[in-house]
């Protein structure tokens, strides 16, 4: 039971001493990427190896036998970020990072040997692809070196299932600080820090809290939005799985500031581990007196429920999310009234994103000035991104606001895969926009992204190279949105369908030049005629690619060509004169008699007639049929 700040400090110190008494701590990443590449098996193998050598211990053993030294602690942590090179194992206290560790073979044995001999297994360390230098620790690796971790400060480090591990990192001291202040003072700090919502809009959290705090009612709610619907984003998931206490602590502080006594975390259906972790975290916090009744001996009480979403993107939108918690179809409701005035069951409700809340406790502990010293004047702090697509280093990153796109894609991301050319970067998922090479120098914060027609969104950042067709990507997003529209507004429901059909026509090779203007016209109408953010931002990917890549659209509609070589229907099948042996096989299989020629001459395909069925391609034994884009 934790009753005072002193109790927290005692846990912090004792846990810290136990860690110091250990010979080493093996932190095996159990983030989604690493698990999928087999990190749980690596964990088992490490434990097995340590047990065989009589080296395995736990924090509890070390805590009990105060004098005991030695032994290695093993932890399954949340995402350590560098998913590209998973499974990852970090050896503390040295901070050596092993990459692509395999459970079978010698890797595990070599890691334990090296730990005992105080050496490093160089072939498992990160190698700089250019200089070939070996970089054993995170501090040296460019991917990590240029990041600043605030929301992810503990993710990949703490044991997410042990509340004491969180306290060892200073956890729950933000809550203690908050409870020593009046609610207005806590609110004042978040306002001064200008913490802006990380869920997309960038609305100042303090302003939202202030509106709810000013409402005089018996009951208010605090909701954490963990719906993370952007297809291509996994930051919130990583925080909920890897550092769930930071989210709970943020919610408690927010609840205290606005005068709420009940909270919900709404978690996306596809994240079962996050749901399980959060439930356990709430139980643990409650058992320790850090949630539930009379928190830390004060008269502040706050209960938290976990709600599982049921698979609807629009439920990330505040009013739809509220409808869903109430047990209804997740359809958006008109605003005002804003949820902060009348939300869940008509009561004042504040909704914040997972990452926003993960910043809150640290602002209270480290201070407003510290927070404002990171990032830009108008967007203080950091932002996490899921960096994916055709970039060399994919993974979960966090950077101060105000880094340039170039810093992110090239310095941290290591540039484009296989030395290919950058084509565009899609930021903000289906609500965002597509930036090009000419935007590389823009700084990434809420306002400057808006200026160029993109949007921070939740922080999915998908890098595309010359082999990605932007028209097809625009179609992909429109298809996603069209499926996810809740159907309430005609423009969103029908407009997105029309846009999708036009885009489909274009990638199928039946587009016309007029279609491009039509897309813009419908897009603008959808923006105007939609109630919620889903519809309002749905045309963004199309409009921004039309603005930035008009040539590529024109190639599709005028030349009937897909320069990236993606759109299948825009290929031409041609017969290579050199390779053709005039064997007649293709002529025989062509269902539309599009191939002609005589015995001695190479054959030809009549493009007018060809239906691109690929029959000739499959049958030719000399590889003479070529696909030309």
């Amino acid at each position, binding site marked *: 039971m934790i009753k005072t700040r002193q109790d927290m400090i005692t846990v912090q110190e004792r846990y810290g001493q136990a860690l110091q008494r250990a010979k080493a701590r093996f932190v095996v990443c159990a983030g989604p*990427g690493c698990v999928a*590449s087999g990190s749980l098996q690596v964990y088992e193998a490490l434990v097995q190896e340590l047990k065989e050598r009589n080296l395995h211990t736990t924090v509890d053993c070390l805590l009990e036998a105060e004098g005991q030294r030695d032994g290695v602690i093993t932890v399954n942590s949340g995402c350590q970020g560098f998913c590209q090179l998973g499974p990852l194992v970090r050896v503390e206290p040295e901070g050596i990072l092993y990459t692509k560790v395999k459970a079978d073979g010698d890797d595990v044995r070599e890691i334990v040997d090296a730990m005992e001999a105080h050496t490093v297994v160089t072939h498992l360390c990160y190698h700089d692809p250019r200089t070939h230098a070996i970089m054993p620790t995170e501090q040296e690796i460019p991917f990590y070196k240029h990041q600043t971790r605030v929301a992810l400060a503990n993710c990949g480090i703490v044991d997410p299932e042990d509340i004491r591990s969180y306290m060892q990192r200073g956890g729950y001291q933000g809550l203690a600080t908050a409870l020593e202040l009046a609610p207005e003072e806590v609110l004042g700090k978040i306002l001064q820090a200008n913490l802006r919502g990380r869920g997309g809009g960038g609305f100042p959290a303090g302003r939202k809290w202030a509106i709810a705090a000013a409402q005089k009612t018996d009951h208010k709610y605090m909701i954490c939005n963990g719906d993370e619907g952007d*297809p*291509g984003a*996994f930051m919130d998931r990583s925080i909920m799985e890897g550092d769930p206490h930071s989210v709970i602590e943020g919610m408690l502080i927010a609840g205290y500031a606005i005068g709420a006594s009940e909270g919900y975390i709404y978690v996306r259906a*596809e994240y079962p581990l996050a749901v399980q972790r959060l439930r356990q975290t709430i139980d643990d916090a409650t058992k320790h007196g850090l949630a539930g009744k009379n928190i830390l001996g004060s008269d502040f009480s706050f209960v938290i429920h976990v709600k599982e979403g049921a698979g609807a993107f629009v439920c990330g939108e505040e009013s739809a999310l509220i409808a869903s918690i109430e*047990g209804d179809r997740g359809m958006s409701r008109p605003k005002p009234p804003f949820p902060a005035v009348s939300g869940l069951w008509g009561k004042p409700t504040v909704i914040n994103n997972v990452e926003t809340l993960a910043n809150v406790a640290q602002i209270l502990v480290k201070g407003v000035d510290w927070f404002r010293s990171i990032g830009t004047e108008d967007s203080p702090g950091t932002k996490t991104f899921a960096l994916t697509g055709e970039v060399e280093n994919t993974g979960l990153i966090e950077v101060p606001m105000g880094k340039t796109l170039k810093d992110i894609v090239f310095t941290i991301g290591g540039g484009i895969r296989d030395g290919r050319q950058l084509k565009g970067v899609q930021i903000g998922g289906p609500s965002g926009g597509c930036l090009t090479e000419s935007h590389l120098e823009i700084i990434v914060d809420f306002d400057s992204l808006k200026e160029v027609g993109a949007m921070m969104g939740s922080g999915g950042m*998908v890098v595309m190279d010359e082999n990605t067709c932007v028209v097809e*990507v625009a179609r992909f997003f429109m298809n996603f949105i069209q499926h996810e529209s809740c159907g309430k507004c005609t423009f969103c429901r029908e407009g997105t369908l029309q846009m999708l059909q036009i885009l489909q026509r274009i990638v199928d090779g039946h587009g016309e030049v007029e279609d491009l203007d039509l897309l813009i016209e419908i897009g603008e109408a959808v923006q105007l005629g939609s109630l919620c953010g889903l519809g309002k931002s749905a045309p963004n990917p199309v409009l921004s690619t039309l603005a930035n890549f008009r040539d590529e659209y024109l190639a599709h509609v005028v030349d009937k060509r897909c320069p990236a070589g993606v759109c299948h229907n825009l290929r031409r099948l041609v017969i290579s004169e050199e390779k053709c042996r005039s064997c007649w096989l293709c002529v025989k299989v062509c269902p539309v008699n599009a191939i002609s020629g005589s015995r001695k001459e190479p054959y030809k395909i009549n493009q007018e007639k060809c239906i691109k069925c690929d029959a000739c391609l499959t049958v030719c034994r000399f590889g003479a049929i070529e696909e030309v884009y």
Partner: protein
Amino acid sequence: MNTTVLGTEEAEASFDLGFLNEVLAKTGTSTAALIPILQAVQEKCRYLPEEAIIHVAAALGLSVATVYGVATFYAQFSLEPKGKYVIKICDGTACHVRGSIPVYEALRKRVNLEDGRSTTENRMYTVETVACLGACVLAPVITINDQVYGHMTADAINIIIDTLGQEGTEHD
């Protein structure tokens, strides 16, 4: 491959009200409990039997239409029994740009799914796409009953189905 894994009649007969009552005892009968109740039924039966929808509506004092409306709004619920193996093809942005659709199409072809259907005739496989499973580095990714497979290709999916097919018949 004519073996029926779970026939509609069997599934409907196997829907037991006892289970529903247990769920109701835990969740209560407020409107807010509707989605969690349907989630419990979906998890147990792999779909929402008509009978269950009618009983839930009665227990919560809602119209059947309201419950049906909620059940059809959310992608998690299905009104048709799902297959023994639920295969989800991640079509998040990263997987999409790295070729998830060819894998999806190869799979549908392999298990003989006709247009518009997502579950095979014999209830062996359900094939669906899903937005981002959060394993973008392994793109394209699929899950089969929540087990993740990365770096998928059309060939790889064929091999996986071969093995599942064998397992499936062995167990029956």
